[in-house]
């Protein structure tokens, strides 16, 4: 039971999910290329090739995770969770400081962000914990508090890095999984209210730039040349793309540097796509994500057991949150936080995490019911 013959794996896997993933990867690499393009004859930064390398590595992980039964992987949930916490503690001590935040663990020339790994560890940990509760237990308040406690540890550690965006990702994951696991609505609402009460405390502990980002989100024109610059330039990029866009490599907002070159290939990659491919392109990207998330939920609904269902739900919640916050951020719907766009944005750690998560989804599908 633990492993399957490769033939069966390929026969049973969800090819649509795989195709959507590859499509997003291709789009991502193309526009990372465009985002770092600075005009003919200018040196071409190697971001797009680095991203391809990450995908190569990610694809390897994907295959491994797909092949090993998810139930086996989840048996080691405690280990994954402990490992993630350990890395989060480690990054606070020996992490590389970038822009005043310690988020990176240097491994040779490559760096990984433990916060991204923690998302996956939390999903597995929560799924494993909730799976082992009886339906009655799951309806108790204590389960909700335990779940929140599981979330709180990485949440606080990520918050003090600080990385507000990644920390916030843990919330929809936890609530989504608790909800699907059968927690009572009133307990969840109570927990949410408690969280809201803690917000002022969080505000108090926020760095100045974080507060600025939030106030700018509420009023982007307050400081258009300072804190509001990225948001304004992103809005101009997206809006000036119009219906059909300016064409591949033709985005002036990005190539002239109005959309800062440091954020265009990662956090604001969507703005580049929207500028160059217009509403048609951005709706296409949203459509691809819709397909991906629908497959995720489909897989959750057809999982062999509650463990699979919970895992799939957590993954869908994580991906959805990233998509919504990132795209919302480029058009001023959400505050500016460093939440990358799954499979599109440049960045190793989250690519690996996303590929692993998608591998898990495939895994759940391969071991679905009626098997």
């Amino acid at each position, binding site marked *: 039971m633990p492993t399957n013959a490769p033939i069966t794996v390929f026969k049973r896997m969800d090819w649509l999910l795989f195709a959507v993933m590859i499509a997003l990867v291709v789009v991502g690499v193309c526009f990372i290329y465009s985002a770092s393009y600075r*005009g003919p004859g200018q040196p071409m930064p190697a971001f797009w090739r680095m991203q391809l390398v990450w995908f190569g590595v990610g694809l390897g992980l994907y295959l491994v995770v797909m092949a090993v039964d998810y*139930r086996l992987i*989840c*048996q080691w949930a405690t280990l994954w969770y402990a490992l993630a916490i350990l890395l989060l503690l480690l990054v606070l001590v020996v992490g590389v400081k970038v822009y005043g935040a310690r988020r990176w663990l240097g491994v040779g020339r490559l760096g990984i962000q433990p916060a991204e790994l923690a998302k996956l560890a939390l999903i597995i940990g929560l799924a494993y914990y909730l*799976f082992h509760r009886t339906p009655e237990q799951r309806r108790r308040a204590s389960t909700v508090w335990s779940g929140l406690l599981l979330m709180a540890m990485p949440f606080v550690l990520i918050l003090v890095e600080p990385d507000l965006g990644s920390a916030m990702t843990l919330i929809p994951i936890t609530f*989504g999984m608790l*909800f*699907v696991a*059968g927690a009572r609505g009133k307990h969840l609402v109570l927990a949410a209210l408690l969280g809201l009460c803690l917000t002022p405390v969080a505000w108090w502990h926020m760095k100045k730039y974080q507060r600025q980002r939030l106030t700018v989100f509420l009023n982007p024109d307050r400081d258009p040349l300072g804190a509001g610059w990225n948001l304004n330039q992103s*809005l*101009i*990029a*997206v*809006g*000036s*793309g*119009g*219906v059909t866009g300016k064409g591949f490599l033709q985005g*002036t*907002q990005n190539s*002239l*540097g*109005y959309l800062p070159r440091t954020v265009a290939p990662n956090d604001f990659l969507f703005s580049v796509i*929207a500028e160059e491919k*217009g*509403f048609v392109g*951005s*709706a296409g990207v*949203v459509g691809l*994500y*819709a397909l991906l*998330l*629908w497959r995720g*939920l489909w897989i*959750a*609904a057809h*999982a*062999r*057991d*509650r*463990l699979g*269902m919970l895992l799939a*739900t957590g993954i*869908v*919640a994580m991906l*959805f949150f990233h*998509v*919504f916050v990132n*795209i*919302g951020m480029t*058009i001023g*719907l959400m505050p500016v936080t460093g939440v990358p766009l799954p499979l599109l944005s440049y960045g190793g750690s989250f690519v690996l995490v996303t590929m692993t998560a998608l591998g898990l989804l495939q895994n759940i599908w391969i071991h679905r*019911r009626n098997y």
Partner: protein
Amino acid sequence: MILTAPFRDNNPRLHVVGALVGAGLLILLLALFRVQVLHAEMYGSREQSQSLRRIRIPSARGDIVDRHGVVLAENRPRYDAVIYLDQLRGSKRQDIYRVIHSHLALLAQTMNLPVTLTEQEIRAHYLKRRPLPLVVWRDLSPSLAAQFAERAGHLPAVDLVATPVRHYPHGSLAAHVLGFSGQAEQPDDEEADEFYYYQADTAGKQGVEKVCDEYLRGAPGGRTIRVNPSGQTVAETGYKPAERGDRVVLTLDARIQRIVEQALDRAPLPAGAELRAAAVVLDPRTGEVLAMASRPTFDPNLFTPGAPAEQLSWVLRNPASPLLNRAIGARYAPGSIFKPVTLLAGLQHGAVTSADSVLCEGSLHIGNRSFGCWNRRGHGRVDAATALRLSCDVWFYQKGLAIKAETIAKEAGEFGLGQLCGLDLDGEKPGLVPTPAWKRLTLGERWWDGDTAQLSIGQSFLLVTPLQMACLTAALANGGTVWRPFVVQRVVTAENLIVSETKPEARRRISASPSDIEFVRQAMLSVVQATDGTGRAAAVRGIRVAGKTGTAEADLRVHGATQRVKRTWFIAFAPYESPEVALTVLFEEGASGGHTAAPVAGQILAGIFGRTVERVGQEGLHAD
């Protein structure tokens, strides 16, 4: 080891999650639709306005030439040494001013010329007009320009730029007709927003430069460039060369203009009199202005940027107003040059016949006042022709009363007095032809017989411009056609295609009969040709000149004191048989028409026809 529990839980909560995810994606789609479809135009223009800059390229003004193609206004290249600030880089943003200063210092050292730019100018240019060259030295002399190219040409970000500037090769010649040009006002419309690098055109401010500005100016060109967030030029996205302005061909004849101006400058003025004068030469067959001059004058080159400021301020502050075109913009009492009008009115309306004679005893009593003739000894018995030849005031007093003021005024009106001539230049004054009704209305006084007497000899309230008198003279010369005078003959493009052409336009034909007009013409001929005529000094060897002298007294208030001056006039046309020129000469302050204005007219006519003036001794001059 996990046991596979039977799992048939088609969890309804998954549907809730699915609905939430779907709703979230829908919100994103709607928001994207709003930004990219509904507000696309707004964001598109914001994108353009922050990254596109337009640079206006001023056009070169068209030339102004005389009727034979002699260039009166053109452009010459002005060499400016410039520095392009957007080609300089500082290691940090604040550093750029240090880099600029060290660059300028190097430039100053290389050229051994001081840099006079202020810190403020440099900063303002860097912040607002970065893609434009910053002028370090304006209008380098050809030798300095050569030196610059040789010594400094290789320095980075430095260039020698040639800009066309207005140039009047003959200096003050025909200055009042040409006018002058200066920097155009920046248009006050949305074009001139902060993203627009404006480089001013040269705009005509007076004279033909102003009236034909639309043609002369041409069409400005422009460059559209893309700039990055630090204002550095990334690419040129559009270029349209400036179109040179059209060429304006004037009716002026530069040769005649020069003759006229020289004659005015050499006028035999009485001691202490200032040269304030005007002269107009018309072609009586068309109304073309062959020459028009005003004194004092100015050099229009003073108005080009960079000219010596003290000379310009002298022109602007001079109490004699050198900018005033006295030929069209100043009004004077005509005096005796008006007498042909009175005579013609009398002949036309039967109040006078050619044989009518009057005994002039040097003065005439009208009412309880005595009106003197200029010749206190009296002219004896004079008939109509003699009265004009000798300019006998008493004859005109008496006949004027018989003709009546209204009739005289009507005749003056037919010749265009009291109205604008319709010259194609700005600044014309209509003058004034008084009537009893006018006096009642404006002064609230009744019209006395004395007023009529004064009007008949061109005094009273009558005011005319030299141009009006020239048109009147032209009408007498050509037998009765009052032309609309004009200076712009045609406008042609650089390819010599005609853009616009002025056709001679007869404003009216005077109603007097040809024989009456001929009578007046003959009398005017004798003014110059007869040995006792008052206009002897205008006689020219070999051609027959007809004319009329005029001396009008005017009271000027100078520093609170009233000063009586003599406006001295001469009107003439020649050759008598088939007139080719009609002219008016005026001096604001002279001895008399015969002594001051007539000789100048003689000089002008002699010059125009390539003849010499007839020698007339002072004793041979009969004043008026």
